[in-house]
């Protein structure tokens, strides 16, 4: 059943028979001798009820309450953290989403780590979304500069071709090589144009062109990247984008939410496994999410205010999908463990209590990361450790950055001290 689709036929192939499996080989940069360390941020919308989310007990023996209960099968792969607040940086959903990965600074940790430690990968960082651009008035977790969001790619087929290119299983064809050469000439021309433009400008606008320059170089590296091959099996499960779906787009239709989500997680695992990137984001929907998740009769945001069984059911649904992701990462064997062992995953949201719109006791969970020094299977409590107040989540971001090899001692907010969180990574 394996069938090779080029990017064009993939995107525009609506109406062709559904391909069950795609086999791609992708030229990428040579893998290092030891598996590289990777990081993945997973956002789910609209907070939680902290008392129904965080385990009461700390240590290694604890029971998960209703909302996080579906994580029980992977409890030993996770670290549960309570007592983390997101300080400063604006209130409610909109403030929360801007700071959850920025620590209330300008740039989010995925972008920062992509630039700091992910430079050699084909993509410094990869942002994939599940309905993030459907009725979104609140923002995205990934930020490239002050007030400048990076919108995730919501279309898994589009994302697939961006990440894995057009090569067939036999490597690039002569046509493909010519196509790359032409693309290369376009990028070279752009670079030359940029460089002559830069000479005319002061520093503010130069900084903008530097970002642009960096962007072109990244795209260029993807064209010229060479090294070992990686076999990519991506099962699209028959998903196709119907070009007639103007609003909502096929990948924004609610009945496709789970399928698109799982395709995006599959793709992310592939991208991390193949070394296409070392830094990923999967954003599920967005703050004030209108989406009805399967089996829940009201939209996610409405559920968050109604509370009760509806809210719990919505949260549980997302947690089951998180289990899917963790198991997926676990299924890739690498030379020194699994992909999960080499990837630290942060599960996050933009609020603590979804009904109160606060940033107190926000639901953060780490998963995997064994080879980055994370001991999992623990429940930790960071409440009231700084002059009687909760620890800031900015320290969690510092800990993750440090584990990824970025030597920083603050990221964003420093009002409750600098450094990482104690007792998290070895």
């Amino acid at each position: 059943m394996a069938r090779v689709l080029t990017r064009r036929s993939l995107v525009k192939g609506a109406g062709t028979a559904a391909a069950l499996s795609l086999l791609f080989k992708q030229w990428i940069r040579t893998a290092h001798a030891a598996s590289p360390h990777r990081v993945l941020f997973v956002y789910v919308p609209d907070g939680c009820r902290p008392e129904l989310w965080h385990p009461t007990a700390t240590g290694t023996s604890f029971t998960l309450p209703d909302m996080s209960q579906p994580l029980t099968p992977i409890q030993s792969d996770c670290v549960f953290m309570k007592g983390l607040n997101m300080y400063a940086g604006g209130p409610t959903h909109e403030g929360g989403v801007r700071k959850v990965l920025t620590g209330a600074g300008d740039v989010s940790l995925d972008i920062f780590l992509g630039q700091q430690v992910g430079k050699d990968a084909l993509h410094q960082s990869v942002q994939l979304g599940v309905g993030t651009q459907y009725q979104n008035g609140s923002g995205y977790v990934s930020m490239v500069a002050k007030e400048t969001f990076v919108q995730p790619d919501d279309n898994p087929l589009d994302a697939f071709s961006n990440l894995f290119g057009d090569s067939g299983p036999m490597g690039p064809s002569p046509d493909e090589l010519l196509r790359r050469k032409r693309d290369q000439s376009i990028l070279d021309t752009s670079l030359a144009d940029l460089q002559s433009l830069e000479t005319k400008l002061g520093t503010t606008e130069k900084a903008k062109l530097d970002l642009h320059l960096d962007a072109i170089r990244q795209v260029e590296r993807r064209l010229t990247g060479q090294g070992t091959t990686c076999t990519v099996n991506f099962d699209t499960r028959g998903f196709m984008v119907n070009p007639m779906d103007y609003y909502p787009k096929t990948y924004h239709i609610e009945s496709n939410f789970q399928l698109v989500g799982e395709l995006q997680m599959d793709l992310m695992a592939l991208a991390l496994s193949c070394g296409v990137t070392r830094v990923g984001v999967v954003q599920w929907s967005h703050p004030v999410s209108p989406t009805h998740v399967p089996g829940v009769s009201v939209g996610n945001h409405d559920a968050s205010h109604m509370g009760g069984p509806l809210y719990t059911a919505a949260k549980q649904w997302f947690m089951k999908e998180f289990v899917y992701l963790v198991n997926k990462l676990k299924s890739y064997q690498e030379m020194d463990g699994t992909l999960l062992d080499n990837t630290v995953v942060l599960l996050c949201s933009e609020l603590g209590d979804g009904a109160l719109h606060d940033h107190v006791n926000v639901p953060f969970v780490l998963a995997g990361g064994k080879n980055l020094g994370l001991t999992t299977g623990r429940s930790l409590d960071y409440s009231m450790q700084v002059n009687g107040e909760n620890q800031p989540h900015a320290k969690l971001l510092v800990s993750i950055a440090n584990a990824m090899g970025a030597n920083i001692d603050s990221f964003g907010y420093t009002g409750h001290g600098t450094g990482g969180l104690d007792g998290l990574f070895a």
Partner: protein
Amino acid sequence: MFGRSALGLVALPLGLSIAACGEGMIQRDHPSTRAQGAGGAGSTSTGSVGSGGSIGPTGTGGAPPSCTAADPPGPQLLRLMTRWEYAATVADLLGVAAPNVEPIPGSGSVNGFDNDAAGGVVTDRHVDAYMSLAKDLVDQAFAANHAALVPCSTAGCDRQLIVSFGRKAFRRPLTDDEITRYLALFSADLTQGTFDEGAKLVVRSMLVSPNFLYRSEIGDKNADGTFTLSPFEIATALSYTFWGTAPDAALAQAADQGKLSSPADLETQARRLLADPKSRPQLAHFFGQWLGTSEVVNTNKDKGTFPTFSTDIAKSMAAEEAAFVEHVVFDASGSFGELFTAPYVFVDQPLAQFYGLTGASATMGLLQVGPDSHRGGLLTLGSVLASHAHAMDSSPIKRGVFVRRGLLCQSLPDPPPNIDTTPPPLDPTKTTRDRFAAHTSNAACKSCHQYIDSIGFGFESYDGVGIYRTTENGATIDTSGSVLGLETGSMSTTPFQGPTDLGGTLAKSPTAQACAATQYYRYTRGFQETNADACAVVHLQQAFAARGLDFKELMVSAVLEDSLRVRRATP
């Protein structure tokens, strides 16, 4: 670049750092309070004087005395095309239908405007999208309009194509270096001997070049260290301001002939562009961003609470708003007042039925309405009412904040981080007004919400999707509202009964009139005003007032101001 400042979310203009509102502490976020000279603060005695009480008598012209020595207000800028601008520009250039620009990541907006230059940065996802869009569009255009794109076939055609298409794509003549650079794309290893392959490569390259993607407002250096925009840059600014796309042949020709430096030349072109139908959707685009309604089609409403609301109704609302503002500005008086007090609406049959209006035609058209209709003017547009509301109920807070920030240009701080900002839960026994009463009974909340809620309460006769109502949960709705501190320097209370009444008040309010000019300034300039802009903004406000508060005149004035042409060096 990786500053780790803990700044608040919303950049408060002019470096305001107020942490609380309190009596008399509300801030104007247009700079007139700083710029004013001796005269006229808060004066209403001069009637149509219009700029937040900061300027002198109508029609005096010239800047207030304290402004005379000011440096040029605006910095040199590179303005990345917004998705809206990109779509229109490539469609015009290539003669194809406007493409789906969804693959281009959107930029953030500042004070509602997505063309703010600070947010326009290019990431690798942008480059991927520009590359792939350019390829698809150029293939499409070469198949459909080959003769128009490649008007030659003899030797030298390569250069001719580069010079002519480049002039349009870069919105200026190419330098010799650039011509040489693009000629290299015709090398045989790239074209494989096919001229069209080289031609396509040139066009594709130009469509991803920074010279195409950014509107240049860099200028040429003057002896005093300031910069004056070139005629090409001015032509581009005019065209994007009024049309949202690249200059047409006539405007390009005016730039080539240097006929864009005198105010008279500029005015001729500005009026020509405004007379063209292309200026209509662009005006509506501005209003959508100003009024915070541009996403109304995507608004999320609870189907159970609002069963008659649908995506089709939302689309009609968007069309209503566009038709209304285009009509007032281009077909009717153009006056600021008519925007708020027009005794007519634009509806199609489904929207009329949704609103409960009779006598509408099937398609979108003007319908005269009386006071009993409870419609007329910007404040009763469905798009405005539905956009500034929640999914399951109205929102006095959102509507109050919209009036303060959007229509009065007064900045409000966000709630402090340690405050519980939970809205009161829905309660089937209370009106929304009763539910929100705590804000103004709790002292900590009241310090700010006294400026917000009492405005929003006056909108309560319209539910979360903009349908008129007289009762809520069985109780009669109290439609009285008030504005505390409407005019600069005043702490008096201005009462009103419902949005149409408030519209009448805003129509005559110098602060609201000045704010319209401030918003148009933000939109045309592509940056948020700072102290350096104080005079330029006041100057535009004065021009608006002096020209009878005619919106079209405001648009013309905005591009005639020196502040558009002359820039200071970027830091």
